[in-house]
């Protein structure tokens, strides 16, 4: 709970970025003022609430809403309903988006992809995901995720912040705020973006998805970008050599120390420390991004695109390197999963671009022993409708947004491998057993990190806000 005392303390120290509360701070007064204020990593006192199973999270967000019907939710019985209007007994008057509410019919479109059973668990996986199929025994698959929004903006905002409307902190910001960092040279919350493989128009993303909402802005996700400056303005300007920069920083520090001596403001000490951290980042980030020391086999495993900076495959590889370095919350966004039309072509392209690196990441973490304390979560903001958007033909169809059931999977720290949660009806339109709400997943992710989702709160506008609002039950069945 964020007491006013905590709030005072945090506005005073503001050291969440790397979370180092007291490191490098000489001010005795401050140290006296902040007894056990924060742990070495900069999280809140009393956190984690209990022994964590996972120390970090890799969230592989597939933006746009991947089709559950063409990947994991196998519905062989649909063939016989092909082309018929979705029965009212299934739709039950539930709202649908403005994109298909005007259609004269909602014809059922079975998946054109073939499914097979894989692994000891005998899990059905479509032909689009041959690599994920190989690691399927490591995954806990939830077929009955459901959400409240039916359009991208509110749905993805809801998934990331627990609320459909803007203004709340994102999941990574909450975790950064609660737990701080394990690596003093890298931000605790890192975001990696990659662009669609699908050819059709893509859905946008918003910086609020990794924003800090009402939490101090130092908890917002830091984007690691491909290109010269992986972190904004990381590189010194042209013509400023390393020793020149060092001398500049030394001079700044010397004058700041003179200031501190006469003014006594602990904020000056903090600034001195932050300039040093910036300098260290100039080494730690390029070292992180430098893949030249990765063996050939790495690239073979993650696939050919992993050599191309900024791709999903390259980001998966970076996610592993970030996990190795103890970054707390690693958030990937891959765009392009919004198959309103041309689903057979575009979903295939999306899977071709992501299936192999996703599976490689899980396997790689496992082989390195990192999967034990890294939680990996895969999925989008909602699923897709069984009925066709636009014209249903032999070879082509599209699917609209579907919030009532979709598939996500989790693996690694705190998760029981191989469990399968939930049942959907024969149209993959409604949950028939064991629904899992987005807030439940959020509560579970926090739980794996040793956080009681009801107790990680922040007082804003008089209210103790939390990621799961006033909801969220642990998904006990997936917990190891």
């Amino acid at each position, binding site marked *: 709970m964020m007491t006013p005392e905590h709030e005072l303390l945090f506005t005073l120290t503001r*050291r969440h970025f790397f979370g180092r509360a007291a490191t490098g701070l000489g001010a005795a007064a401050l140290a006296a003022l902040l007894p056990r204020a924060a742990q070495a990593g900069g999280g809140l006192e009393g956190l984690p609430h209990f022994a964590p199973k996972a120390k970090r999270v890799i969230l592989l967000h597939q933006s746009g809403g991947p089709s559950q019907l063409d990947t994991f939710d196998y519905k062989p019985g649909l063939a016989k309903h092909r082309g018929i209007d979705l029965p009212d007994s299934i739709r039950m008057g539930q709202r649908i988006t*403005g994109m298909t509410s005007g259609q004269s019919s909602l014809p059922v479109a079975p998946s054109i992809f073939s499914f097979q059973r894989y692994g000891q668990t005998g899990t059905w996986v479509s032909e689009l995901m041959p690599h994920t199929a190989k690691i399927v025994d490591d995954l806990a698959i939830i077929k009955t995720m459901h959400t409240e929004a039916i359009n991208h903006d509110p749905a993805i905002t809801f998934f990331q912040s627990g609320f459909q409307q803007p*203004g709340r902190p994102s999941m990574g910001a909450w975790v950064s705020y609660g737990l701080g960092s394990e690596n003093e040279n890298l931000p605790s919350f890192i975001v990696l973006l990659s662009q669609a493989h699908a050819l059709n128009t893509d859905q*946008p993303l918003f910086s609020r998805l990794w924003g800090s909402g009402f939490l101090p802005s130092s908890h917002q996700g830091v984007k690691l970008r491909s290109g010269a400056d992986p972190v904004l303005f990381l590189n010194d300007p*042209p013509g400023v050599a390393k020793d020149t920069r060092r001398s500049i920083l030394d001079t700044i520090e010397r*004058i700041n120390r003179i200031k501190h001596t006469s*003014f006594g403001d602990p904020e000056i000490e903090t600034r001195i420390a932050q300039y040093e951290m910036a300098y260290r980042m100039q080494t730690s980030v390029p070292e992180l991004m430098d893949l030249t020391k990765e063996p050939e086999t790495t690239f073979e495993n993650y696939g050919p695109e992993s050599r191309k900076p900024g791709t999903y495959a390259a980001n998966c590889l970076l996610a592993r390197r970030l996990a190795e370095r103890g970054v707390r919350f690693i958030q990937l966004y891959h765009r392009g999963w919004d198959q309103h039309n041309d689903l057979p072509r575009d979903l295939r392209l999306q899977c071709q671009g992501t299936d192999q690196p996703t599976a490689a990441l899980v396997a790689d973490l496992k082989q390195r022993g990192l999967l034990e304390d890294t939680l990996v979560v895969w999925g989008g903001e909602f699923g897709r409708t069984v009925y066709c958007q636009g014209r249903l033909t032999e070879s082509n169809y599209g699917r609209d947004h579907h919030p009532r059931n979709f598939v996500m999977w989790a693996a690694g720290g705190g998760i029981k491998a191989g469990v399968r949660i939930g049942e959907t009806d024969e149209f993959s339109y409604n949950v028939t057993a064991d629904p899992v709400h987005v807030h439940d997943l959020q509560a579970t992710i926090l739980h794996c990190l040793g956080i009681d989702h009801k107790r990680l709160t922040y007082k804003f506008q008089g209210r103790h806000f939390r990621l799961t609002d006033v909801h969220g039950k642990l998904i006990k069945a997936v917990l190891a």
Partner: protein
Amino acid sequence: MLRLYFALTFGTVLAAAAPGVDFNREVRPILSDNCFHCHGPDSATRMANLRLDTEEGARKAIEAGNSAKSRLFVRVSHAKKPLRMPPPASGLSLTDAQVDTLKRWIDEGAKWDEHWAYRAPKRPAPPVVNAKSWVKNPVDLFLLARLEREGLKPAKAAPRETLIRRLSFDLTGLPPTPEEVAAFVNDRATGAYERLVDRLLASPHYGERMAMEWLDLARYADTHGFHIDSHRDMWPWRDWLIRAFNRNQPFDQFTVEQIAGDLLPDATLDQKIASGFNRNHMINFEGGAIPEEYQTEYVVDRVDATATVWMGLTMGCARCHDHKYDPISQKDFYRFAAFFNTTSEEGLDGRYGNAKPFLPLPNEAQQQRLDAIDAKTEARRAELDDEVIELLLRRWQRERFDHVPASPVRGLRAWYELDGNLSDISGQFRHGRVLTGDIAFGAGSIRNGANFDSATVAEFPASALDVSRPFSVSVWVRAGRQQGQPILQQLELSSGGMKGFELALAKPRTLPRLRRGHPVEIRLLGGDPGRALIVRSRDYVFLQNDNHHLSVTGDGSGRAAGLRLFVDGKPVALDVVQDTLPEGFRVEAPLTIGAAKAGAPFKGRIDDLRFYDRPLGEGEVEQLAVRYPVEVVLATPGKRNRETAGALRDYYLKHEAPEQFREAYRELLALREERIDLVEEIPTVMVMDEAETPRDTYVLGRGDYTQKGEKVLPGVPAMLPPLPSGEKANRLTLARWLTSPEHPLTARVAVNRYWQMLFGFGIVKTSEDFGSQGEPPVHQELLDWLAVEFVESGWDVKGLIRLIVTSAAYQQQSQVTPELLERDPENRLLARGPRRRLPAEMVRDNALAASGLLVKTIGGPSVLPYQPPGLWEELAFGEAFTAQEYEQDHGDKLYRRAMYTFWKRTAPPASLVTFDAPDREKCTSRRAVTNTPLQALVTLNDPTYVEAARHLAARVLSDVSARNDDMRLRKAFQLVTARLPQAQELRVLRGALAHQVGAYQRDPEAARALLAVGEKPAEAAIEAPRLAAWTNICTILLNLDESVTKE
């Protein structure tokens, strides 16, 4: 232990004036935060039928004077954990100190008091103090009385250099110039400080500085925020805001105009613009979103913003249920919402810029042109008498009825009418076929046409077209939305790359406002990148979703000069991209539409596709594009629909009518174009209005737009004064109610926020929450005194600011001792002056101002300064909308004040956000102040700062009055910090300079590289190594803690 320690420290700051426990300051916050959730205003979740938010309710659990017999105390101090309140499941718990406070309060008689903020403030008598000589005005009396009680002494007055810098930033957002500093430092006459204050309050930059604060509250931005997040224009409202502050509009009028300017009798244009305050919220038009859902969100946002900005109330908490802490029921929320639910807005809007309702704001010249166009249009329209035209048109149709549609047939190699199949009707039997997917035939340009989704591929025989000999291609195209796409391809893969022919739409160009237009490209590809003939339409662009006739003719020469492109029957100018096709180029591949051999596959409609083995003449192309479609319509019996009837009329008036009608029609069309162009130039601004049939408002179950409950009428919560009786319950009445002197909140909230602006913290720290969960005021009497003073002064904002900044408290120096830091770490008691990092905007403006780069133009549209590439594009929807690609400005626009930076909500200005600027999605009442390494990277490496450092260096090096390096260092130091460096600082800088000069003399190449950063050319008269070395010295100065701090 920790909790106790802090409770004491914190309690000390907030402790009451009188001995004994103060209910409002000490007790209510404990009850509110820990008990109200289940024992508070929300009846739906109230437990044990006990409420502790009212005196009557609480008395049931309290026996005054006897804590041991009070159920409240018994339960919070219960030895058995399961019985102790608050229950473990709540996640809440009381500290020992809090339990002790409750005990003492009960034992002292449990005196109850109404929540302080809901009682109208009365002007208290200022307290008596000992150190009277320190006091400059009544503000000081209140502060000093408290300090004396605490045994603390105020700090000395800050040096004048510090004061002028502090004041300049606080009142104008800009640093003082060295001349201004000197003038003030040397002004030894009495009243120098007050004169300085008055000068700054009169500066036109005062309005900008005050607007900066208000823009966060108003959630001002230049994009809509939701989903596509495209461009909007609210800068005319921002301009109004700056003007309003500069003319010191009284705060009550300022309030009325922003909430209900449109409803004022005979509202002026400015008053209507002011009402745009409540149109600054985010707006959505995501495909598939449900209008009512978002229209509801807009209203909720207005309630949130209005309640926060003027009342410090968290009304939003009562959207889904009764407020958990404050006496605001869910019904109250919707009654308040009803004031804002009567505009003519639509739920989904904004695709084309501003969303309804909005006002056009033509300048005088534009208005004159508009009037002239309208007058001419009126006159020309009168010449085209509908009845006469109708008669003539009918006669003409009768005359032409028997004509068979005519089109060129000589040299026709293949003709696909595409009226339901891919047959060739030229008689050559070169039929096409569907390769994958299937084609939907539907209404087309000529009878039916063929629709391609991106999974459809059609193929036509190779022999239909041979571009190595004379040829023509003629086709109607409606292009769907793609990033650029081939229409027709005749390609094969050769060893070096693609070989063959393509007619394609190139990557689209962004046109004014929303439109995206593709240049048309004709490509003859020779199999490797070095061998190709590519021409592209120079000015013409094919607008997405438009329908046009395209003809390509070629003379078979394989040279650019031999190719022509016609659009809708008229030749268009071509640019030659490449003209290196080798001799003997031939292609024998089949023709395809929809294959993704290169680029995205075609999506859209194709009609009347023809191939000829000769170049068609201009007359023939015009026949195909203009007359033939009309002749087909004329020759087709049956009833005409509106579209075909319209097309006939258009054709007739363009080509066949008597000359006087044709002329009138031509000019009408030209006037229409001119008017469209003009209207696009005229800025608009979104405003509030009242719809002709206002929407009804309902209580929404759980805040959900689908769960309509009781219908409600506009009204205000009962704990606040009632609306004036006899007035219509609308926004105007609401605004006047807010600014009535009896209102307990408006003035307090306003003066508190200005206090926050100047001191870093409000007297009520939670400036957004004056309710039960907010922090009680640290100096309630001072707050009340200021609030009453503010109202009685006629809501004089400049007067209020003058009062605060002329206090002795404001003028203190900001050094802090370890003892004081421990006593009052946040400086709530103000035993020293405020010292805080500058807001994001001022960090940047200070660097630009010190360097001399700052362009001080006030107002106007937002600008796009330097920004790392890709920050918008990596997130954006990407096409067919505005504000998707960052097109950086140049020249003066790079150096405008940061407050004019284009604010895209989903990707707000990176360098500003790093310094805690909000994304402006919601009303923000106070910003965090963080201190992070990312900030260091900005001020060290962002080209804005590197260029500013270079310019600052050039400024001091070119200053003839600075005759040696020490003088130059002093000068630069003063430009950045307003003071001269101490000897010790100067010594450090001298050493650094020697080091930098040495480094760049050894490496002049590096010097030139550094000087090339930024678009302003480097000062050529200064040799590169020297300027580079000084640039780094200036970077040092701009990065000092003091430079980014108001101290």
